[in-house]
């Protein structure tokens, strides 16, 4: 790791000003930045420590919605009773991520911005070609080992998977990302790689996430997160799904549903086709499984990741059934 300057920001404005300098990087939990700096993927010249900024770690859960300060740690959010009660998918997605220690470190804002686990991206010495890391150099993953790579949202320039869990839950629950400059709907927040895989979100230089707002809806209160992986714990998803489900008063008709997928796409992947196919339909296993197949419409295999195209609809279906109380 190259040496860098370090400063602790005392106000959001100061942090934003410092962050505009080329070579400046923001430090919150540090679990991504330090990891990538050790891999020589991140090469900050100046690190701006946000962790002592006042007022950015509060969690407010009210009737109309919840606001989670960007500096709240994953574990604090997961342990918040209001979040657990009204947004179970958020709490579950956090508890199924990383380890207890990392959850005590990583912040909600930083969690959204975690970088891909693509082994080619993480190994600049071994793989100089990586469009995400060094634009225009090519993609080493294409034609390589792709078991953990995306099948949705890929381009000829990048097939790296978005690794996070929380953002998948937030996508299903229609969250909004608040920054020091604006509010951004989560659907618009993450970018697909296209020809510019180095750009993963719409955040501008000097723009800092301050909070995440989640609307209170019946489907949020009846939401769940299901994560599938080989190892029982402490592993990224092979495929995951977040589902929010609202039933009619008859208890069997789907009034509203929102579905998002993780571990299979270049960004948190909303499955609108699944939602459309199920809204107004009866909640039964056959219907759910049929509709869940559309979750991978347009998916493209690169060899080793073909299994994800089969796996993802199963995960979606099971998550919907779980949210509907059918185990």
């Amino acid at each position: 790791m190259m040496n860098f300057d370090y400063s602790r920001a005392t106000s959001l404005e100061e942090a934003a000003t410092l962050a505009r300098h080329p070579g400046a990087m923001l430090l919150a939990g540090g679990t991504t930045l330090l990891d990538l700096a050790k891999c020589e993927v991140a090469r900050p010249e100046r690190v701006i420590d946000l962790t002592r900024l006042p007022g950015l770690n509060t969690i407010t859960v009210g009737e109309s919605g919840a606001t989670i300060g960007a500096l709240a740690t994953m574990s604090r959010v997961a342990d918040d009773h209001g979040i657990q009660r009204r947004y179970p998918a958020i709490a579950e997605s956090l508890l199924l991520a990383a380890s207890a220690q990392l959850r005590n470190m990583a912040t909600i804002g930083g969690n959204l911005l975690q970088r891909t686990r693509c082994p080619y991206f993480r190994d600049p010495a071994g793989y100089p070609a990586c469009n995400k890391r060094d634009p225009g150099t090519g993609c080493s993953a294409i034609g390589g080992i792709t078991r953990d790579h995306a099948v949705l949202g890929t381009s000829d320039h990048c097939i790296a998977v978005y690794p996070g869990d929380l953002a998948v839950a937030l996508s299903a629950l229609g969250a909004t990302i608040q920054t020091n400059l604006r509010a951004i709907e989560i659907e618009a927040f993450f970018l697909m790689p296209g020809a510019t895989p180095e750009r993963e979100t719409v955040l501008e230089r000097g723009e800092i996430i301050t909070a995440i707002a989640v609307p209170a809806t019946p489907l949020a209160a009846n939401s769940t997160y299901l994560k599938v992986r080989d190892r029982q714990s402490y592993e990224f998803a092979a495929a995951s799904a977040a589902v929010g489900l609202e039933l009619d008063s008859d208890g069997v008709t789907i009034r509203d549903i929102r579905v998002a997928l993780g571990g299979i796409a270049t960004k948190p992947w909303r499955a609108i086709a699944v939602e459309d196919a199920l809204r107004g339909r009866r909640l039964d296993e056959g219907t759910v499984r049929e509709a869940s197949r559309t979750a991978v419409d347009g998916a493209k295999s690169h060899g080793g990741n073909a299994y994800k195209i089969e796996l993802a609809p199963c995960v979606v279906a099971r998550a919907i059934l779980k949210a509907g109380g059918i185990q």
Partner: protein
Amino acid sequence: MASVRPVKLDINGKEKTLSLEPRVTLLDALREHLHMTGTKKGCDQGQCGACTVHVDGQRVLACLTLAVQSEGSAITTIEGLAGPDGTPHPVQQAFIEEDAFQCGYCTPGQIMSAVACIREGRAGSDDEIREFMAGNLCRCGAYPNIVSAVRKAAEATA
């Protein structure tokens, strides 16, 4: 470019002042600069848990924490876990009795994690202990005995 700067750390209730570059991790500050080697380096990239310490009472990974970032926080390491008279912490005692380690290298991290796990109220069942201790890898495979030790210590301190 930044050079060394004074960094004041509160470790096990004692203030230590070091001259460190900003890039020095808390783990290397402990091991290489303070010669407090109870905290172990197993991967140096947040994947094994051997470097688990407590910062302001929370279990965290020292390998992904900058030393300078910890200024103003209370740091507890394995060396600070026993009582003032040297009495082992109940978790340390339980680890010995249950033979919850073999080579001993992941052990300080396991113990720091276990103390926090119990404090967090996450030692309610064997399955809960397994999940909330999953961030501490043990290659000797002492997991069944670690679960027994955590359960025993949790019951003793309940």
